[in-house]
């Protein structure tokens, strides 16, 4: 786990020799990049086509007249932009809850001595390995049948306020533990209490960790299908992921049927759904890469 943060650096100067092998490797690198990029291009083309251009064989490789109105049209079929807003609300509240609570808990584990601390920390670490499927069913009954939180965003956001995931806590703890103790001592002598120390000194120092974890939290909430699927029964409350499924069933059930040329709207919806992820990726690319190296977390 203690991998060094080195990917951001330029590559080491390896043996530079022009050869047929290098040429081949470079061409392969570029060809694969085009291949990886192609589904995005195709989604954009699809989203901008007219219905009658969708099932032409061979397919048109570009939209003759880009139909930007498809992005409005998709909002007329279903309140798709409302789903976008719902997703933003859940993502923002849930991520903030996760960051606040896991940083507090991480601070507790890093800076205070109390009985049972090490045992509790080991327990916390083992919960990382527990598959969510094991706790899913009782948790569902608790939220929906005991607490009556069905059809609300509470079951999605409340858990993040309670410890915010073992992994975030672990990362915060590791980071806080690496801060020299003298800083805490000096702050104490100046009459700075634990809460003020956390707010004024620890949090500003941990911006890189906060941003890294914020990205992971964002991805968790933004991509989540299972949570909204089981808790948000009212279609009105859908998120982007369940909204896309609703869009597909409203438009005829599936891709792949001849005659139901609705793929342009499905592609428009898909683009809306992934655009925020991609924008955030470009804005914070460095932290994405750093986060992966630090955590080994897979998206």
């Amino acid at each position, binding site marked *: 786990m203690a991998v060094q943060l080195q990917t951001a650096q330029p590559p080491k100067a390896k043996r530079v020799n022009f050869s047929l092998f290098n040429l081949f490797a470079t061409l392969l690198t570029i060809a694969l990049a085009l291949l990886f990029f192609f589904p995005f291009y195709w989604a954009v083309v699809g989203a901008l086509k007219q219905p009658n251009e969708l099932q032409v064989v061979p397919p048109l490789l570009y939209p003759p007249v880009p139909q930007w109105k498809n992005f409005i049209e998709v909002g007329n079929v279903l309140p798709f932009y409302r789903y976008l807003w719902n997703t933003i609300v859940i993502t923002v509240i849930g991520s903030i809850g996760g960051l606040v609570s896991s940083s507090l808990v991480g601070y507790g584990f890093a800076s205070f001595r109390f009985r049972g601390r090490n045992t509790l920390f080991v327990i916390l670490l083992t919960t990382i390995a527990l598959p969510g*499927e094991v706790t899913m069913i009782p948790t569902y009954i608790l939220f929906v049948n005991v607490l009556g939180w069905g059809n609300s965003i509470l079951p999605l956001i409340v858990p993040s306020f309670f*410890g915010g995931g073992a992994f975030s806590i672990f990362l915060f703890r590791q980071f806080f533990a690496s801060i020299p103790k003298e800083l805490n001592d000096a702050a104490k002598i100046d009459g700075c209490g634990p809460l003020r120390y956390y707010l004024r000194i620890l949090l500003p120092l941990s911006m890189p960790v906060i941003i890294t974890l914020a990205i992971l939290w964002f991805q968790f909430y933004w991509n989540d299908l299972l949570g909204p699927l089981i808790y948000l029964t009212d279609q009105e409350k859908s998120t982007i992921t369940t909204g896309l499924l609703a869009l597909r069933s409203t438009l005829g059930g599936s891709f792949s049927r001849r005659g139901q040329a609705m793929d342009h709207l499905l592609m428009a919806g898909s683009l809306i759904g992934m655009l925020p992820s991609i924008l955030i990726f470009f804005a914070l690319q460095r932290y994405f890469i750093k986060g992966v190296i630090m955590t080994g977390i897979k998206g």
Partner: protein
Amino acid sequence: MTQSTTVQLTGAQLSSSVTRKRRLSRVALLEEAWGYLFILPWLLGFVILTLGPMVISLYWSFTKYEFPLPAKWYGVQNYINAFTQDDLFPTALWNTVYYVIFSVPLGLAASLLLALLLDRKLPGRAVLRTVYYIPSIVPAVVSAFLFSYLFQPEYGLVNSMLKGWGIVGPGWFNSVSWVKPTLILLALWGAGGPTMIIFLAGLQNIPTDLYEAAEVDGAGRLQQFWSITLPMLSPTIFFNLVTGIIAAFKIFTAAYVATGGGPYYASYFYVLHLFNNFFKYLNMGYASALAWILFVIIMIFTAIQLKVARRWVYYESETAGF
């Protein structure tokens, strides 16, 4: 602690040391209180949202609990039913094992290939890395949509191109024999994501002088790859393998969206089966048993890998990291 043992303690000194001890312990108590206060959110969450549900789901797995009817003790019948009565259980398990066996090694190989390609002097390296990475940040629902569109059998782009070359393309997501390979292809689209980045970091940690020495000794590229790159990278490969297998066992979203488990249950994976028993049939007892079986399977696989790892994972410092 700093007192010298030769010094006799007077009564006054003793009492002062006692009060000091008490004061210290008050500070320690205060510290303890703060500590518990800060970890309280997690402690509550752990008891209410992890430990409690774990115990309850274990209990339910031994009951017949068809919601909303009350749970009735059922012994190990759910577990027996899974292996003897439920025809879909072996189907789901087999599909999942198939998916794990193919998607994980292929995914690792693809990620490693991309990392090797990027770990060279290359103009526009950062741009290429970005292009490789982006598919992995796309929500799984969206990537399933993009692939459904690309691989649509009749007018989709892929089959249209194949047709242009005189090949009749398969039914992809709609074909019993092709649906799992197509889902694996979808997983491979994300090969340039976190796994590749971890490989890239591993590659950059290999000391260059090893290659220089090998070159002096006249080792070719392939030999260098087998004798230096792979052994030096084995801890990284191991990490990606373990996490990759766990993730692959839990495949859900891509299949739920792209195929719904079909056609003819050909892509009906384990978690889909669990989900259906839980959310569709409200068979909470059986679904709980399925969850615990999955947990045990994952633990066994991970334990086997940890055991086998000693034979092929090379740790330079001989202090197994990770």
